């Protein structure tokens, strides 16, 4: 079933009809189209070498193959560029949730010295838009990036042949023994919360404090936002630091119970998957790839 959101976007099968959109930034065709052009506009970086799309490649589920994002002048950031799939349904942005809205989020990479390295004034002057229009247009475009109508969506809506037997076994494991739905829940496969899986724990210390740097809450040490699993097969490498190259690596990581550390999330425990279970989980994750739509396309 495909339905219209405010007569602008087509919501694919599997996603909620309601998408939270700020009252002061309603979706319009014009803003989405402008945002799309800005998203691909290299003028928004200091040396005009990169655009948003450089690290959020539409062909890769709006993510990048680089473990760590590379910005202007070859500068390297500190984290993997997250996939921008279905972010219109999000409640917290960036791996550490430091932005509460998409309107706030879209401006930060422009200003980050390791990403695009412009002041907002410079960016505004280059594209001849005030900062508010820049922010609202980019946010509107990102809200238009949607993925649904995957084999999984068709399966849970009654098309029993949409998943193979192995994928169905993977779904059972995902919901049952794997306890994956403790965090990867809902149509977008994320609780939008922050969890310590141990991925940032190396040699007895955190390589990245994660959410703690924002919240100062002790239990947030090494915690990162649960990413969506939509289109996950296209968005390797994985985790906030891109340290796991394949889905097989990810499943193995969780099978072993993450990486033990003082703040490990209580939901993360060894699952000891059998080889066929690991294969089934990977097969299931691959069926979360559907049709990506962006802009008005």
């Amino acid at each position, binding site marked *: *079933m495909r*339905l219209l*959101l*405010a007569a602008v976007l087509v*919501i694919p099968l599997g996603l*909620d*009809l*309601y*998408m*939270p*959109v700020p*009252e002061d930034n309603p979706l319009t065709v014009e803003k989405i189209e402008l945002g799309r052009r800005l998203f691909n506009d290299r003028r928004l970086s200091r040396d005009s070498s990169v655009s948003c799309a450089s690290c959020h490649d539409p062909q890769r589920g709006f993510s990048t193959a680089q473990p760590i994002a590379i910005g202007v002048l070859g500068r390297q950031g500190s984290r993997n560029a997250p996939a921008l799939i279905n972010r219109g349904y999000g409640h917290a942005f960036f791996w550490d949730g430091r932005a509460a809205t998409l309107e706030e989020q879209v401006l930060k990479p422009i200003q980050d010295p390791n990403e695009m390295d412009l002041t907002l004034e410079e960016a505004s002057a280059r594209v001849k838009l005030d900062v508010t229009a820049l922010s609202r247009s980019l946010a509107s475009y990102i809200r238009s990036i949607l993925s649904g109508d995957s084999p999984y969506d068709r*399966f*849970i*809506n*009654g098309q*029993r042949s949409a998943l193979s037997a192995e994928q169905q076994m993977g779904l059972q494991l*995902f*919901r*049952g023994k794997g306890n994956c*739905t*403790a965090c990867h*829940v*809902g*149509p977008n496969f994320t*609780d939008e919360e922050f969890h310590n899986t141990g991925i940032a724990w190396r040699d007895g210390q955190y390589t990245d404090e994660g959410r703690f740097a924002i919240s100062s809450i002790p239990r947030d040490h090494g915690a990162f936002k649960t990413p969506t699993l939509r289109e996950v097969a296209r968005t390797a490498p994985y985790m906030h630091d891109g340290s796991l190259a394949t889905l097989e690596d990810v499943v193995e990581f969780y099978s072993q119970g993450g990486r033990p550390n003082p703040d490990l999330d209580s939901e993360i425990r060894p699952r000891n998957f059998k080889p066929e279970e690991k294969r089934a989980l990977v097969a299931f994750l691959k069926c979360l790839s559907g049709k990506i739509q962006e802009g008005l396309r």
Partner: protein
Amino acid sequence: MKVTRMWIVASIAAALAISASAQRTPEVALRAAMETETVKGDLKGAIEQYKKVAQSGNRALAAQALVHMAECYQKLGDSEAQKIYERVVREFGDQKDAASAARAHLGRNEANATSAGMTSRRVWGPSPAMSWNFLDAAGATISGDGRLASYNDYTTGNLAVHDFSTGQDRYLTTWKRPEQRDQRTPYPQQSAVSRDGKLVAYTWFNPQKGYELRVTSLEGSGMPQSRLLLYNDDILLLKPNDWSPDGNWIAVQLQRKGGTQQMGLVSARDGSLRVLKSADWQSANRIFFSPDGKYLGFDAPVRQSSNDQRDVFILAVDGSREVPAVTGPSDDTMMGWSPDGKHLLFASDRGGTLSLWGISVTDGRPQGSPVLLKSGISRGSLGVSNSGSLYSGIQFSDRDIQVATVDFKTGKLVSGPINPAKSFLGVNEYPEWSPDGKYLSYLSFHNRIDCSCTYGIPVLAIWSPETGETREIQPKLSYFGVPGYNWAPDGRSFIVNGRDLKNRPGVYRLDAQTGDATPLMMHEPSLAIDLPQLSPDGKRLYYRRNFSGIGSAQLRLGSADSAFVERDLASGTEREIIRRPNGFPADLSPDGRFIATTSNDESTKSLTLVLIPVSGGEPRELLRLSQPERLFGPASWTPDGNSIIVEKVRNDSLTDREFLLVPVDGGQPRKIDVGPTIGLGPVQTVHPDGKQIAYVVGDSTVKQEVWVLENFLPALNAKK
């Protein structure tokens, strides 16, 4: 006005009595603010001064300042006054004068409303809750003319409609009584009648298949044929909540097998599902269409990580927007809409007691501040009729704990009994002594009083005989399974079967201080588990398990195959100890070596109490009763493990009951004389000192009624 004047005089007097020393700056500031208000007449200036005092950290002065500030707002005609009075009641209950003054202001508002001619009357009941039930279902609605409501008749297992105008009931299904069903028998669950009173949507649960949404017509006089609207194998739970005014859509809540909760619309024409909004794990209590059909009003938990606070929202049915209608630290429940759609009604504890409130709504957005309409209302709304009458259900019971000292050798009462509960009387059951005997816990069903929770999460009350104080904890669960919660051997936690706040079924260890739930074992949603107990060393878990995928209610009704299972917590390996054809009771001995249970022998029309060795071996008969005598239990071992206390019922009507002490060495059973009791499964518990017994007395039946609140619209409109 009298209350206000007295309050001002008292406050000024208090303030004048205070010297303006350096340490008393807030007091001086309060006096200055009062002068600004009363002498200069500068209300806005005074408000700013009161705000500073309210932030001073001195609770007494802050409470006074807030009340004065609210009075200033009130004089200015600003609705902020109401919020501040509510805040004082809510947050400053320890400041009695200020809280009293705030309540007086709030109460005056309510009195104004009552004087407008509001009336409340009972239209159905009292009836036993098990014979019909609107309230568990959270899906029942009334027809627009206020004449019909659909319900699930548990006594016959059928879907029915009740006609409030004639008092007549009409069955919409022909099915078997619950005790006649086997574990594969489908049965109806939640339902909703359409606004025009012509159709009923209901869920039909098939234990082998899952939930179907069906619709049946009320036209004609015979047994109607139902029509399948929606079936989806991925849907674990499904509830119809309300019909759109034009009858084209049914608002539903559903839970996916992965745990995701969703709110959506089902087409009454073709059964297509339109998912409007998903939540992670917790869902709405009530959903009602606005009279123009454009919006859904619903309540939802503020946080997915707790179950103690809900807000109310308005969601456009085309998904274009959602607007918070009622927010704040109070617990709010959607109750309905005024017939003209200009007001949304909600139940809230924001004023200190659970009350009905209204808020103006224009174009799907709230306007102004909520208005108090009536105190003392339940959250069990069935909706508002076209004429503006609010129908709501209430539950009530008369069950309380008694603690008595008994000479178990003679069976005679030595002292007592006493009731440990000092509040929430009539809703207390399932007493359990802690292993060290320092505490008596019991379940207090606060939710029964206000119908606050769909599936009824009781409060765990922990009473100290030494101090006489009772501490309450709110279990952090979305479902609390009774019977059979137990203290863990460590005395610091309870063992409970239920669902955590992520809706995952399992057996949990519940922290006796915080209510936090930690899983001991998780299981598939289709399994029914109850009576969880730990071995004395805490290494093994024992529980009763049903294998057919039906609920605990059917277990209690004795219609399911079930087994008593031992699970090694370290390895997760399980061993079935006994399996019986119905929901037999089972209780582990204090040393963990025996299970006491009953055996029903149809050939001799008798029932036996037997001991079964946990490690294997032949059962040993302790007691045999012939019909009509029967047992409720075995409920409790004595702490020394030498005897079992059971409740014997001597007649079919279950009214003639007594406790029996049955020695396990084969000695003669003897009566324990504590007076009348009621049978509700494990209802008695013996103190580790072997002298005190706690048990339940009262009426074994929870009752419910439907009430209608009429003529509240004039009060609502008068406050615009």
